């Protein structure tokens, strides 16, 4: 039963990983840029929530209503003022600039908040669970996170498929120059995409803070989990990202059952196995958002 339990926890964890991954995947889909600062920006969101909770005493899940628009704004401004200028001359500039950005943000967080681990206290929801059988229970919090991830993915899918702006995003993704001829300002489109990606990172960051502890140095780990979920699921596939996240989460929790030190390692090994056997991921839809 401990194995089944580990598996259920892994599935729930996968929802959180899908949230990390969606932002990364969205940016890559729209502008072919891998944002190496994505992990540390998620941590930044957790720290913004921490700051708000610390100063107002709000429940972190309520504070999320402030964190998300703040992260959207950060994303929009970051794209307009910096990342847009790195596009169009090969793969190196955006990679190196976002890498530099990750180091800068990480060290600003270190300077302001120190290297201590922090947590966000969401109150009762953290301790209540649903009993499935006498020995199997699912916590309300992991379940909520998982369901929020699913709802967000559905909302994104509808947004891309049904709205005018979603169409502009897809057009820019397919052919940025032709989209410009249709009077789409791709600087604005990219900035909104980055805003959306960081808005989702804002949701993910608050959940990370509520679920476990976090510190300024954990950005790279989140980036790697997001990346693994994207690759396992298949580039460019929204639902693949969820499946990728779930596979990664289950691999980790089952690995941790084998030996305590194997939580991360088993996730990495499953990722490498998928890379070796099916390098395009399980649900490839290359080229689409």
């Amino acid at each position: 039963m401990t194995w089944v339990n580990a598996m259920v926890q892994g599935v729930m964890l996968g929802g959180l990983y899908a949230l990390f991954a969606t932002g990364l995947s969205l940016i890559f889909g729209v502008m072919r840029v891998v944002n190496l600062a994505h992990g540390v920006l998620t941590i930044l969101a957790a720290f913004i929530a921490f700051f708000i909770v610390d100063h107002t005493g709000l429940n972190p899940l309520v504070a999320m209503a402030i964190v998300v628009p703040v992260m959207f704004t950060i994303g929009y401004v970051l794209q307009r003022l910096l990342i847009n200028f790195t596009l169009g001359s090969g793969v190196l500039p955006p990679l190196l600039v976002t890498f530099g950005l990750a180091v800068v943000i990480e060290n600003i967080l270190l300077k302001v908040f120190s290297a201590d681990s922090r947590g966000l206290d969401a109150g009762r929801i953290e301790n209540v669970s649903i009993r499935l059988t006498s020995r199997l229970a699912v916590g309300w919090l992991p379940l909520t996170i998982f369901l929020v991830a699913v709802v967000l993915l559905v909302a994104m899918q509808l947004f891309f498929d049904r709205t005018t702006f979603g169409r502009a995003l897809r057009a820019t993704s397919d052919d940025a120059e032709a989209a410009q001829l249709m009077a789409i300002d791709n600087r604005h489109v990219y900035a909104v995409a980055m805003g959306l990606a960081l808005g989702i990172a804002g949701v993910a960051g608050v959940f990370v803070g509520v679920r476990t502890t976090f510190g300024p140095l954990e950005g790279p780990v989140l980036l790697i989990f997001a990346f693994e979920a994207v690759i396992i699921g298949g580039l460019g596939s929204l639902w693949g990202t969820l499946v990728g996240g779930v596979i990664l989460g289950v691999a980790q929790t089952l690995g941790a059952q084998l030996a305590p030190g194997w939580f991360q390692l088993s996730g990495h090994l499953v990722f490498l196995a998928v890379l070796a056997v099916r390098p395009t991921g399980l649900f490839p839809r290359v080229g689409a958002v």
Partner: protein
Amino acid sequence: MPRRVVVERSTFASRWGMAVAIIGVLVLALAPALFLNSVLRTLVQFFYLLALAQMWNLLAGYAGLVSIGQQAYIGIGAYGLLFFADRLGVNLFVSVFLAALVAAVLAIPTAALVFRLRGGYFAIGTWVVAEVYRLLAANTQSLGGGSGVTITAAIGIDRTVREYVTYWIALGLAIASVLIVYYLLRTRLGLALRAVRDREMAAPTLGIHVLRAKVQVYVLASTICGLTGAVIYLSLLRLQPDATFSVNWTVFMIFAVVIGGIGTISGPIVGTIVYFLLQQYLADLGPIYLIILGAVAILVMVQAPRGLWGLVLDRWNIRFFPVQLRVRVKEDPSAASGPNETTEPERVRGRSVDG
């Protein structure tokens, strides 16, 4: 007026630069007799950082491969040194080179995996592999586990001998790293790499096997990173997985190369000097030091993507490591002087690939 067309590679700067460099290397080789041990240790640090920067530049600047996982090979070199010297009892200094072989052997299957990814995903993929090596080392009790281990084979060797030999190996490594890149770029592979970098789609039409060229460079750079890792821990002696496999090694490589000038041989040298000097004076500031360095790297990448050395090249066109052939029209010796006229072909390729 009679003229002669000359095709040549060396430049005024490269000839004089080489002469000065040879004298400089001779002085450095004699350094153990001249300087205090503390100075030697500082120089060793400079040498291994230079080798790392050169190798990262070879990967990113010439092969277009952004790896954030080169710390994997530093760790493999370090643990290889531990394995051969401590566990098998091989001579400490011989073990350094055997450790590099281990890095070479492990680079091949690693390449087979990470080369399935492209661009930015390749970058994170290499990082994951480095994490796997770190976690494997941390979970292996016979290699000291998570708390680390000290290379005890060094205890049996006279301290002065160890420091001197370490110094000479590090000096040789730094020189070799520069010369290997310089030589490589003049070979067929170097030409292929530059063709790939300038237009990857067109390169195969010239008969270039793009993937093979990139894998060759990756394995070479990783082997030398492994050697460098062994040299680093030959001087530090204390291994700890989190530090040995730390991404901060690669952070240094990236910042030094970007600030100095990516895609040139002089760039990483300049970048390493800048990084090194800043570190001597600003490292006490902790996070602020890295904030400044990161901000400078971002600024350079956006405003002057060819780095500090690129600015020098734009202004003075000094090339210490010329790679390309250039055509020069020389006045006939019997005629009046006016020799240094360079014709257009040299400038045709908008971007500089050497210096």
